């Protein structure tokens, strides 16, 4: 688990910087007037992972991202992004950012927008001549390369926004609700792009309300509330977590159940319902074969795992309204 500190870290404790991390924060805090937007964010994001940043509305996610990008000045705390302190201008050459509801000068065409962002990010002109068509192709906007943004749909804005965040091949990419306004094909495209970015070694910091997307895409997630990390999960290890299986069957007896011990960590038979747990997804066919071979009539065989959404509700509690 890459989470270093959650609640109660001493504000004066120095940030122990490590090059293994794309970013580290220590008790990062932001106060607007008398309103505390971020109470004390302490987290670390490993290089080369897709990192999910989860929390309910008003949890301080956007403010936290803005602080990490230098858009908002922290009231207290410290952070290191790609080895540089917050606000460092040069390190931004290695950072890409897709803001929530991306909007830009709508009189530009898609190709012009990418050229402008590429130039502002310091990409040489000859490289841009190759990058711009390739990126337009990547996000499926090649037929619209000369269309002005004012004629773009919301989904097209998101696609070109994602492309501008990638134009300079950044090492660290912040994406704020990247799938907002996208249809299922668009969401799949974003997923594929994020994985490709991870595969080339980039780190992706992802803020999204679509937990199913996060679950499929992210390696690591943290849950935050009131600007503090509540807990984290390593989604890469989720397949090694226990799976619960509910079996409804007739002609089952305790001997059959005892024979499952080599695959299961627990098994309980109550009337016609057998509830068992296993650590391996691969064991499921063997369990089913064993029960059938023992002569049981199977009516239901349902493996269950807590979805990220269920986990989110469990951690954050039910919505009590704003």
């Amino acid at each position: 688990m890459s989470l270093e500190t959650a609640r109660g870290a001493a504000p004066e404790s120095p940030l122990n910087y490590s090059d293994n991390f794309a970013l580290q924060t220590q008790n990062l805090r932001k106060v607007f007037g008398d309103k505390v937007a971020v109470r004390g964010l302490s987290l670390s994001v490993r290089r080369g992972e897709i990192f999910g940043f989860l929390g309910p509305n008003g949890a301080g996610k956007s403010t936290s991202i803005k602080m990490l990008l230098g858009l908002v000045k922290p009231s207290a705390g410290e952070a290191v992004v790609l080895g540089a302190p917050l606000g460092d201008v040069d390190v931004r050459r290695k950072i890409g950012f897709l803001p929530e509801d991306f909007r830009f000068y709508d009189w530009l065409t898609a190709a012009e927008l990418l050229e402008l962002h590429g130039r502002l990010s310091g990409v040489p002109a000859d490289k841009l001549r190759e990058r711009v068509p390739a990126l337009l192709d990547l996000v499926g906007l090649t037929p619209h390369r000369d269309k002005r943004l004012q004629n773009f749909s919301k989904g097209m804005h998101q696609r070109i926004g994602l492309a501008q965040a990638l134009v300079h091949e950044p090492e660290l990419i912040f994406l704020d609700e990247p799938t907002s306004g996208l249809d299922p094909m668009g969401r799949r495209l974003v997923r594929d792009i994020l994985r490709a970015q991870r595969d080339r070694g980039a780190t992706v910091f992802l803020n999204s309300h679509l937990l199913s997307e996060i679950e499929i895409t992210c390696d690591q997630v943290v849950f935050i509330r009131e600007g503090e990390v509540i807990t984290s999960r390593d989604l890469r290890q989720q397949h090694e977590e226990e799976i619960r299986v509910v079996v409804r069957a007739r002609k089952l007896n305790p001997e059959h159940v005892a024979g499952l011990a080599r695959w299961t960590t627990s098994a309980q038979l109550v009337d016609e319902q057998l509830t068992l747990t296993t650590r391996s997804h691969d064991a499921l066919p063997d369990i089913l074969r064993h029960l059938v071979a023992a002569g049981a009539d199977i009516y239901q065989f349902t493996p269950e795992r807590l979805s990220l959404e269920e986990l989110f509700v469990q951690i954050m509690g039910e919505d009590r309204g704003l």
Partner: protein
Amino acid sequence: MALWIMAGITFREAARKKILWTALIAGFGFLVLFGLGLHYQLDDFNRGDMSAFLRYQILSAMLMVGLYTMDLLAVVMTILTSVDTISGEIASRTIQAIATKPMARWEVVVGKWLGFTGMLAFYVTMMFGGTLAVGYWIGGVTAQHPFRGGLLVFLECILALTVTFMFGTWFSTLTNGVIVLGLHGLAFLGGWIEQMSGFAEGSRLVLLGVLSSLIMPSEAVWRRAAFEMESPLAGSLQFSPFADISVPSLTMIGYAVVYLLISLSIAIYHFHQRDL
């Protein structure tokens, strides 16, 4: 480098959004009207027996009215085109995609400022030059020191631009527009009150005018421009509304330049400090 990219994109924005062309078309309409007015005036003179001396003074006064109208148009155009550039981009969050690029925040402000300054240089050259050309071509009159006058009109425009930028880093587009137009209105009224002091010989009127010029020196810059452009005889005879009754000193012009630089510095500082 990023500074010049921002300047270029700001200039392109003006051209692409047709702001500049619309302003120039409106300016062309003004020039046509001004030319027709001069033409008919001259036609009326030719049918009468007015002396050449008086005729020249009246046509010179008309040229000054034309230049004054052009100056007002330029200042209003400056405020209207730039009022949204910082405050609007902050409100729409467009600025977030720019401010996260590898460039200092001062480069964003100064780049945009340079882009607008370039656009204003083009606009003022076209309009000021057009008004002088119409005056000379139709009326046969010209300004006394056109180069000095043109530079001062340009200074007045970039002063209005800079003040608009400064308040744009604080307030919404609408509030910014109200403040800057209000300040210019104050300066306009103060300038005329000071001009009226010549008739009443009242030092209190002069004081009011000077105070308003200290708050917003744009109108004072125009009155100095008018002094430079009007013929000495017409000015001293108090033949036109721009007669040299109360001419802003070179110190006031220096004050306007310092005012501009301080406004730009405040805009840069506040944009650097604020959350986006």
